[in-house]
């Protein structure tokens, strides 16, 4: 570990786009932690004040600051894994220095344990194994799909397999036959909207980027998938990585962008390798680079790995993180379409959104619109997990009945149990229970019950579960992930979590309820980003559906 080696490591990345995260990972991988010397070298090389760099590094959950920290096991103790004994698994591994990590996006598998660059899964320590993440099962309703239509084809993850099964035909058509304006119109006409949860019309977003002044323009793929109970983007990237790249290249063509980033969450190391490989293949085949398909158009994609921070899935935080800044959300407006990466026009899109683009181009806007139920356009991936017979990723027409998905497609509750509640939007949408589970999977329907569909994570809890405990775990997650920028979220998530674990020092249930509701109301109305606004849905819905369990909790 000589000084020269430090300088070389910095020099490798210094002139690359968005260098901070990769250079930190380079030191982290080399040394097994981030030493003071490493931070000094990075600070000097990237000209970031040392105090700022130190502060930023401590923000990320997975950057270890003590020797050996990088390779110490991290056990997922997310809401779903807790149902399967994650706390016991963690306890059995604690003597080896294992620590807890929030939901690692493998809710369709046994409990994941992250060790360095490898994810192992298993219910107990002696059965931990490494395995390829599950492919989505064939559509149980036999319905036509968009994103998953070709994902089950053999060898689809390789360039060769992808091309053999229709891959990159959308891109070839766009670049061969269509103008950027026609492409924007097609995507707009299709009704495709942000599948990361915000639901903003993709065509409108891309048009805004295309029209915005500023150069270079950037396409950012948000692959941070940090929402508990969400694991659809991982399935796409593991089994169909070129679909994502193709969507990004079409986006670049339509928007006039020169560079692209995939911001991938830390907890997906194998996915990182898959994407890296796919990018190399695409570059070699001329789909990326200085002169794409000899069109004279330049566009390249850079893969960047997060370091353990849910908030980096919020687009402002994500952009700050890419830029090497403290990953606080940004104040909006201005929006990324005009002031995004490096304050230049940027389209930030979710993996699922981008992976939908190729098929939409091939099959047409009307085809995509027609995939939805009634007036709803297109499909949505739903990540189903928890107390259900067949957890996994399902592609449903937007507007599809939740109950059909739960009972007919996924086999319903476990033997001898009934479904007590489901979450929406991972954890962010809070719970639906009772008759309110009789919704269709589209925003108007779910929102009419006070929740939202979001990224499409649905966690099922059967009648054996203590819903206050479930809510406490959920709120503890939000408190752990609150960035600390705005007061209502920073204090509120922590205080509500304290009230769900105990009574928070309240003398009566009425006081308890008033405190939880007052904080919730203010968090919802005044928080600076979606995290703080959504977190109180957990307690709102808990109080709405399970007042008896709350009363019992307070009494105990």
């Amino acid at each position, binding site marked *: 570990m000589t000084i020269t080696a430090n300088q070389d490591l910095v020099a490798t990345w210094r002139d690359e786009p968005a260098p901070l995260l990769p250079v930190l990972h380079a030191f982290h991988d080399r040394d097994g932690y981030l030493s003071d010397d490493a931070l000094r070298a990075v600070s000097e090389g990237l000209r970031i004040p*040392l105090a*700022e760099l130190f502060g930023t590094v401590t923000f990320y959950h997975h950057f270890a600051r003590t020797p050996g920290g990088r390779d110490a096991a991290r056990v997922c103790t997310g809401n779903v894994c807790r149902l399967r004994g994650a706390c016991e698994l963690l306890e059995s591994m604690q003597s080896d220095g294992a620590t807890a990590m929030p939901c690692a996006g493998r809710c369709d598998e046994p409990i994941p344990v992250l060790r360095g660059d490898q994810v192992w899964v298993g219910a107990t320590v002696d059965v931990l194994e490494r395995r390829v993440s599950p492919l989505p099962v064939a559509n149980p309703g036999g319905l036509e799909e968009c994103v998953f239509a070709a994902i089950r084809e053999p060898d689809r993850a390789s360039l060769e397999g992808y091309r053999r099964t229709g891959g990159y035909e959308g891109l070839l058509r766009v670049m061969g036959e269509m103008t950027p304006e026609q492409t924007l119109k097609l995507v707009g006409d299709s009704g495709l909207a942000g599948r990361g949860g915000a639901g903003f019309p993709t065509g409108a977003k891309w048009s805004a980027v295309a029209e915005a002044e500023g150069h270079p323009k950037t396409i950012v793929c948000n692959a941070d998938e940090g929402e508990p109970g969400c694991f659809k983007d991982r399935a796409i990237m593991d089994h169909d990585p070129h679909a994502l790249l193709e969507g990004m290249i079409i986006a670049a063509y339509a928007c006039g962008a020169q560079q692209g980033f995939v911001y991938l969450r830390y907890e997906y190391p194998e996915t990182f390798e898959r994407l890296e490989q796919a990018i190399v293949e695409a570059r070699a085949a001329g789909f990326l680079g200085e002169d794409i398909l000899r069109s004279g158009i330049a566009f390249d994609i850079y893969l960047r790995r997060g370091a353990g921070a849910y908030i980096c899935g919020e687009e402002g935080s994500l952009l700050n993180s890419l830029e090497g800044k403290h990953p606080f959300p940004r104040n909006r407006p201005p929006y990324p379409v005009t002031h995004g990466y490096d304050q230049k026009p940027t389209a930030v899109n979710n993996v699922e959104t981008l992976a939908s683009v190729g098929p939409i181009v091939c099959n047409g806007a009307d085809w995509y619109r027609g995939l939805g139920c009634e007036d709803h356009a297109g499909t949505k991936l739903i990540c189903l997990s928890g107390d259900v017979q067949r957890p996994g990723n399902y592609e449903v027409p937007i507007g599809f009945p939740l109950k059909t998905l739960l009972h007919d497609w996924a086999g319903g509750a476990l033997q001898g149990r009934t479904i007590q509640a489901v979450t929406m939007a991972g954890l962010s949408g809070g719970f639906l229970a009772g008759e309110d589970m009789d919704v269709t999977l589209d925003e108007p329907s779910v929102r009419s019950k006070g929740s939202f569909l979001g990224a499409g994570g649905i966690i099922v809890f059967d009648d054996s579960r203590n819903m206050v405990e479930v809510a406490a775990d959920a709120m503890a997650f939000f408190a752990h*992930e609150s960035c*600390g920028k705005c007061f209502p979220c920073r204090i509120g998530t*922590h205080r509500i979590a304290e009230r769900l674990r105990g009574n928070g020092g309240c003398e009566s249930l009425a006081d308890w309820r008033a405190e939880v509701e007052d904080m919730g109301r203010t968090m919802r109305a*005044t928080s600076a980003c979606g995290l703080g606004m959504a977190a109180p849905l957990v307690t709102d819905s808990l109080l709405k559906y399970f007042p008896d369990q709350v009363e019992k909790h307070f009494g105990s």
Partner: protein
Amino acid sequence: MHDQLRDMVVAGTVTIDGDAVEFHDGETIFQVARRHGAKIPTLCYDDRLEAFGGCRMCVVELEGSRNPVASCTTRAEPGMVVRTRNEALDAHRKTLLEMVVSENREVDVDPLRGYASQELKTLVEEYDAQAGRFKGAQSGTSNTDDDNPFILRDYDLCISCYRCVRVCAEQEGDHAINIMNRGFETQITTEFNGRLKESACTFCGQCVQTCPTGALGDRKAMRAEEDKAELKKTRTICPYCGVGCSVDLLTKGDRLVGVQPAMDGPANKGALCVKGQFAFDFVQHEERLKTPLLRGEDGNLHAASWDEALDRAAGGFSKALEKHGRYSLYGVASGRAPHEAAYTMQKFVRAGTGTNYIDNCSRA
């Protein structure tokens, strides 16, 4: 800032609490409303810094917006209809204050801690926020053993508004302090969480003066906390260098107990350096010179009258001029001298000795 705005072109009109108010390009709702006289509470705002949007106390109702918006980060746009106060906003502000108070050891701190140290306390009283609601863990860990004579780091009182971090970066360019960890575990830190002395800190005290809770305290001024005499502020100019920073001297009785920067000082706009901020002990120092001193035959310094001293100096100058000519003399005015004294010095040197060799120590 307001003077500059007055010269700018009006960009449109917004309605603030029922009144039509013109605004200038780039102004935020907060700025327009304050200019109009509306009193919008805030804890993370400092006029001199980029708006941050952290405390959310400044949220206002904006017609057409589902949620209230942070007025400090929202630019005014033509036709906006804004209400800065109503029952719902007051309730949110009160709840926010009660949440903030719940994470701190205390709210009532001595004003000697710093210029802005009473901001939280004032708002808590104004909104009748109750202490004792939202009980739970307290955030922030005090570094009271940070051994420096100037800055108390009492982070039990920190509310994570990051004004200190931002003033250090934006106003001073020092980047000595930053934000460690996240969420409720957030903590103001230096590089590697060390002491200020081992950091890039220049002890300018700007962090202390912008802190709205007294979590950062002016250790020099705090020495006089026990003095029960009334605290008075007197506006003057810092005596140290040629910049001419406006300061408020803090006195109790006839004792100078501290210095605070004048936020409206035309030369400094609230900025000070370590000398102007903390180096005032010489004023009342027991070894401070009170009469001229002359070196006697015995080689020691002895008290003398001004006449004796000036005679000795004049004699010395004359001797040098006689012996070596007019270019043997060079006059340097102290940066701490006022204009009039500097003028007199150059007049004396130019007219009295016939040389143009004059300078001022603030020039470099």
